[in-house]
C-alpha cells in the first residue's frame, strides 16, 4: 500500500512536470487510471472499530439506510439455480400481520452492516528455529490443525520453511488454507478475477455496485486490506457519481455513509438529501460527521456544518434555502386549507 502511494505520488509529481501525453508504457497507463481513486483502507489511527459499534453511530447509520421493504425484499438472482415453486398459504388477518411483522423483524438481519474495522496486523511469530533441518526439503510444509470447533481466525496454521524455521503463516496463506480445509460456500480459494484492476473498473463503469460489494463481502474478511481497498474505490465511485439510490436500503449503505463521513466527503450525499427533502437524514449525516470527528454543533447543525466544514458551500446553501422556501410555502398552504375548512 505504502509502495503504491509512494509510486503514485512520484508519478503525480512527474506528470506535473512533464506532458501527460508523452508516450508512456502500459504500466503507466494503469497507474494513471488508478490515480482517480486512491484506495483508502482504514489503516491509520484511530481504530474505526470501537466507534463503528457505538450504539448512537449504529442508529444513525440505520436511519441513513432508509428501510424500504420493497427494496430489501427485492427479487434477487439465484446464481444459475432454477427458480423454485412458490409456497401459497391461506391466512387470516392476524396470521398475515404476523407474517409481515416477522418479515420486518428480519430486515435488521438482512441489512446488517458489514463491520468496519482496522486492517489486520501482519503475522510474523516464529515458533522455533532449527537450522539443522536446512536441506531437508526444497519446499515448505504447511501444518494445519483441523480440530473441530476452532474459529478460522484462531486456527493453528504453521509453516516449516526450507531454512528449518517454524513460523506462523501469513494472512494470505491462512485465508487460502482455511478456504481449502473449511470452505465457505461460494468463496473461492484465489480471489476472483473481477477484483482485478481493469475488470473492476469495467464493473464500476457499468454501475454494478451491489454486485461488487456483495461479492467482496463473501470473498474477503472485513479486516482484509484488499477488501477495504476494493470497497473504498467503489464507495468513492458511488460518491462521485451520486449513485446513492443504487445502494440505498441495502446492507452496504451504512458502511458507505461511515466511509464518507470518516474521510470527510459527505457533501455530495448531503446535497442529495436536502434536494430530495429528507431533512431528517441530512441531520443524521451531519450528526454522524460530528460523532466521528468529535465536533459538537449547537442549534441548526446543517447550517453550522455548511459554514464550517463544507467544500461545496454555495450549492449546499442554495439547496437549503430552496428547501426552506418550499417548506414555508407548504406550511402556508396547509394553513390555508385548514382555514378554508374552518378548522382554525
Amino acid at each position, binding site marked *: 500500500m505504502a509502495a503504491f502511494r509512494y509510486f503514485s505520488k512520484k508519478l503525480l509529481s512527474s506528470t506535473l512536470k512533464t506532458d501527460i501525453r508523452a508516450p508512456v508504457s502500459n504500466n503507466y497507463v494503469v497507474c494513471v487510471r488508478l490515480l482517480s481513486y486512491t484506495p483508502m483502507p482504514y489503516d491509520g489511527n484511530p481504530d474505526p472499530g470501537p466507534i463503528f459499534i457505538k450504539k448512537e453511530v449504529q442508529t444513525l447509520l440505520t436511519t441513513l439506510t432508509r428501510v424500504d421493504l420493497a427494496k430489501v425484499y427485492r427479487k434477487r438472482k439465484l446464481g444459475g439455480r432454477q427458480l423454485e415453486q412458490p409456497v401459497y398459504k391461506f391466512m387470516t388477518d392476524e396470521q398475515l400481520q404476523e407474517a409481515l411483522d416477522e418479515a420486518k423483524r428480519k430486515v435488521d438481519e438482512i441489512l446488517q452492516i458489514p463491520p468496519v474495522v482496522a486492517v489486520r496486523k501482519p503475522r510474523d511469530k516464529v515458533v522455533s528455529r532449527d537450522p*539443522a533441518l536446512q536441506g*531437508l526439503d526444497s*519446499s515448505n510444509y504447511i501444518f*494445519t*490443525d*483441523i480440530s473441530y470447533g476452532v474459529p478460522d481466525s484462531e486456527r493453528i496454521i504453521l509453516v*516449516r520453511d526450507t531454512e*528449518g524455521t517454524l513460523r506462523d503463516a501469513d494472512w494470505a496463506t491462512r485465508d487460502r488454507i482455511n478456504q481449502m480445509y473449511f470452505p465457505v460456500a461460494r468463496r473461492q480459494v484465489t480471489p476472483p478475477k473481477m477484483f482485478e484492476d481493469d475488470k473492476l473498473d469495467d464493473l464500476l463503469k457499468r454501475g454494478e455496485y451491489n454486485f461488487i460489494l456483495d461479492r467482496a463481502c463473501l470473498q474477503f474478511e472485513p479486516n482484509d486490506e484488499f477488501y477495504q481497498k476494493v470497497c473504498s474505490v467503489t464507495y468513492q465511485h458511488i460518491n462521485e457519481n451520486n449513485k446513492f439510490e443504487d445502494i440505498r436500503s441495502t446492507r452496504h449503505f451504512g458502511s458507505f455513509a461511515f466511509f464518507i463521513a470518516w474521510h470527510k466527503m459527505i457533501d455530495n450525499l448531503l446535497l442529495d438529501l436536502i434536494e430530495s427533502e429528507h431533512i431528517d437524514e441530512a441531520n443524521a449525516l451531519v450528526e454522524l460527521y460530528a460523532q466521528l470527528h468529535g465536533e459538537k454543533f449547537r442549534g441548526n447543525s446543517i447550517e453550522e456544518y455548511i459554514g464550517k466544514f463544507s467544500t461545496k458551500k454555495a450549492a449546499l446553501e442554495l439547496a437549503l434555502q430552496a428547501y426552506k422556501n418550499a417548506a414555508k410555502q407548504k406550511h402556508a398552504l396547509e394553513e390555508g386549507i385548514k382555514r378554508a375548512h374552518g378548522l382554525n
Partner: protein
Amino acid sequence: MLPPSSGIGQFAATSAKVIRFVRAGCTNRPFYHIVVAERRREQFEPVIEQVGSYDPMPNANNEKLVSLNLERISYWIGNGAGCSGPVEELLGLAGYFPIHPRSYMTAWRNRRKADEEAAAKEKADDSNEEKSETSSSV
C-alpha cells in the same frame, strides 16, 4: 456403499492401534490420509478414524500441505496408539513431537550431497578455466 474414508469407528477394545498413512491418490499422484487403524489391519481396509491428510506433491506456491486433527491425535496417543515412522517425522516437523532423528539425518545427507556436488562443479569449472587459459595462452 463404500466405507467412508473418514473411518467407521469400529475396533476391538484391546487391539494395538497405530497412526499411519493410507495412500489415497491416483497413479503417479500420491496423496495420503493420516488415519488411526488397528495395527493388524491391511492398508486399504476400513479405518477407525481419519485424523489428517498429507499431500506430498508441492502445490503452485511450492508448499506441501499437511492437516492434523491434533485433538484426536492427542486422544489416540493418550490411549496408547503408536505412530508409524513417516507420521512421527511429520509430527516432528509440525512441532508436536521432537524432531525425528531421521529428519536430521536426511537433512544432513542432503546438505552433504549438495556440498559435494557444488565442490565437484567448482572443480570442473576451475579445470575448464585452466584449460581455456592454457588454450588462450597457446
